[in-house]
């Protein structure tokens, strides 16, 4: 297994822009493989939202590491899509706070509406549904992430409104690269807490 970055056989699907982007990132670190996480984001974008075996091999060759090491990293983080997702990937937080705020009912309602189980994708390839670990906005549980947008205070009754909101908006398309996420409220505050009416930018780090 050679890790020859100059071999044309390994120049696969990264566009010239993507290669330039990666090399700029690599230049920031003492070791090539330090750029593994952003490289995987680029791969997810370049390979249409899914980190395929070929994507991991391309990252491996570009960073000069064995492919299985890339898979080891990619399989640790749930935000890397190791299997094909629908265009809208609905991730419902099922972690402690949200669970206490009945995220199960949100998941159940979405399963009913979409006709799929959590972890599955609709037949037309439009929607995927999955449970997520803490999305780091616990005070607004239940939290739902769709693409680059976070929805707070979602209840089972909000499911139709949620689906309407994400339908036509490209910002809700499956995450292909690391970017700023936007927090969204579907309706006014509840339980007496003031709610921002407009969308608020928040850095997901």
């Amino acid at each position, binding site marked *: *297994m050679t890790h020859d970055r100059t071999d044309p056989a390994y120049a696969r699907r990264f566009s010239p822009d993507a290669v330039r982007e990666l090399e700029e990132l690599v230049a920031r670190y003492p070791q090539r493989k330090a750029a593994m996480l952003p490289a995987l984001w680029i791969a997810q974008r370049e390979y249409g939202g899914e980190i395929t075996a070929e994507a991991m091999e391309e990252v491996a060759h570009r960073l000069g590491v*064995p*492919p*299985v090491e890339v898979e*080891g990293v990619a399989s640790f983080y749930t935000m890397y899509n190791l299997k094909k997702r629908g265009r809208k990937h609905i991730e419902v937080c099922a972690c402690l706070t949200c669970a206490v705020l009945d995220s199960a009912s949100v998941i159940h309602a979405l399963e009913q509406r979409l006709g799929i189980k959590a972890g599955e994708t609709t037949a037309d390839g439009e929607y995927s549904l999955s449970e997520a670990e803490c999305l780091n906005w616990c005070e607004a549980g239940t939290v739902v992430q769709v693409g680059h947008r976070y929805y707070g205070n979602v209840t089972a009754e909000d499911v139709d409104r949620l689906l309407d909101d994400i339908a036509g908006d490209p910002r809700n398309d499956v995450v292909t690269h690391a970017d700023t996420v936007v927090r969204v409220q579907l309706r006014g505050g509840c339980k007496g807490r003031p709610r921002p009416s407009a969308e608020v930018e928040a850095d997901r780090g």
Partner: protein
Amino acid sequence: MSQVEFVNITIDGTTVQVPAGEMVIESARRVGIEIPHFCYHPRLTMEAGANCRMCLVEVSMPRKNPDGTLALARMPKPQTSCSLPAAEGMVIETETPMIVEARKGMLEFLLINHPLDCPICDRGGECPLQNNTMHYGAATTRFVEEKRHPPKAYPLSKYVIFDRERCIHCARCTRFASDISGDAQLDFLKRGADMEVSSFRDTEFTSLYSGNVIEVCPVGALLSRPYRFTARPWDLSTQKSICTECSNGCNIKLDHRAGKLLRVNARLNEEVNEEWTCDQGKFGMDYASHEKRLRRPLIRDGAVFREVSWDEALTHVATALSEAGPAAAFLGGARSSNEDLFVLRRLFQEVLGSQNMDHRLGPAYPSAADVRAALGSQSPTPIAAYERMTTIIVFGCDLAVELPILYLRVRKAAVRRGAKVIECQPSSYRERPHANKVTDFAHSSIWYEPGQETAIAEALAHVMTGGRDPGASDGASDAAASLPNAVAEANVEFGSAIPRLDDGPIAIIIGRDVWSRSLSVPATLKAAADKMGTPCVINTYACSVNEQGARELGILPDGSVQASAPGLNADQILHGLKDGTVKALWVSGVDIASQFHDPELVTQSLEQAPFVVVTALDLNRTATMADVVLPLASVAEYDGTYTSMERRVQRFHQAFDAGVDVREEWRIAANVGMRLGVDMPYASWRDIFGAIATSERAFAECTPDNLGDGGRLLADRNNEDSR
């Protein structure tokens, strides 16, 4: 060389001096204390190590009181002794109540998801997890929930099956793959509660060294497919042996039971294989107990073979050979022991008066004088010496396939000792599907097309000597600027890829594909080496198990000091069979019909040969064309010695009696000699080895009793008279 610094540390009351920085787990061994452990392995790096937490010890360090006196301060928590460097004044305790409790706790954790199906586990009886649990574990567990149940028999490679349930995530196998064999095909996926060892996307684990992970795994998670469920360790007997699959001379253990070879494990030899084997060795030696083994001598009866007694077969052979006399010939021998070869040589030279002997398979047959002229009389570079090389050049050699254990040593020299490895290889090697390529760690790789070898060698020679030509300025890259025309025509990228070559010892490895065709490449490089100011050895290593022995013992047309004229070489012998000048042929241990450079010539010659006797383990292609086939004892069934490619003479021991009517080749040859009236009264390998030591200069310092377990390098050729 930097001076090693020593420190005093006290382990369970015994004070001992150890090198500063040595891991405490190793220091404890010096005072006879074995600290229980799983993930620690002295040959693997500590990256991803220290994960099993089994090796905990309590540590106290001397500290200065305010008044200047020293007091011992105990660290509040136990430490992992496998990653704790020894320091001056350190006091280690390995059996305190806290440690006893900690070990119990760690084992309880490790066993949470472990199936403990020892009764059906291959490892049971020799399992560190089982042993440590018996010694240090609690009798019961508090874990009552359901255990994880990943697949129990996942086929990881052709040879290795993976029981994921039993894995304790010690990272020994993954570190073997990345640190030792370098293919890095195993790693942890899904880190967290579902963590598992895997290859990339469940692809096949194609390492040529995959079998070693079975041995390093401290539990029964990685298992040998051929050995699985065939024996319990306590029913096995073990014998010391030598791997016969190539010329590296790996030290191995043959585990056998009831006359059957069941598995091969590595035996420690720091000078040769350390504690590794390649897959070819570990899994390729099943021939010893193969059902296709020949059981009785065979004599041709028209189109079929008839089983006969040894007496009948040997009489037949003796008659045919004596009729042929000096027109008898011998081919093969590269798989026979030193003792076999010595007696065979006596039979041909002294009894039959024939010097028609050749162990080579062609196509080139340089005379001994040609070889000396091209290569001088340097001894080959010993395997362990690679760790001291500054530069290693691999020329036309797929090292991991041709000389697998040397590959591991060269890789170690490059990765751990900083040797610069330069490879010049046919470009077709790039396409070979196997893992473990020199390219993975080479400083530079130069690819050529067949036919360009000489041009490449000349270019290399030019770079080697370039800096020292009076006319040329100093430095390798300047030399590269003025490469000879031949290289410019060959159109390979060269010069700038080559580092300075004159800053320390160099070893050059030339592949069999190159040296067996012509000596021009080795000769060109040797001439350049002689002009360099730095030691440089050109190696044309033997490839079969005792090919070097055949070279040393002169299984060659000009291998006799007494004979006035050389005999026929292998090609001439085969042609002689066709035109009737050679009247009888003995083929020893090698399937020449498959391995000769010109198989067609072999088939034609054997068809027309008046008489052919073949000694073999099974009915190989050559044997099917013979008049008499004599069944040989396998390496597991007799005693003797081999000479490895680095000229190391090593002992192999009889493991069992095959229960079939087979014989050692030396016994066959002596018996034929006796029938022809020349007594060769050898009773055992020792007698013959003694005779070899007396008559062969190179073996002069060897005795049957001074070979030890690790073997002995033959005397340096520079101190010998040339034969």
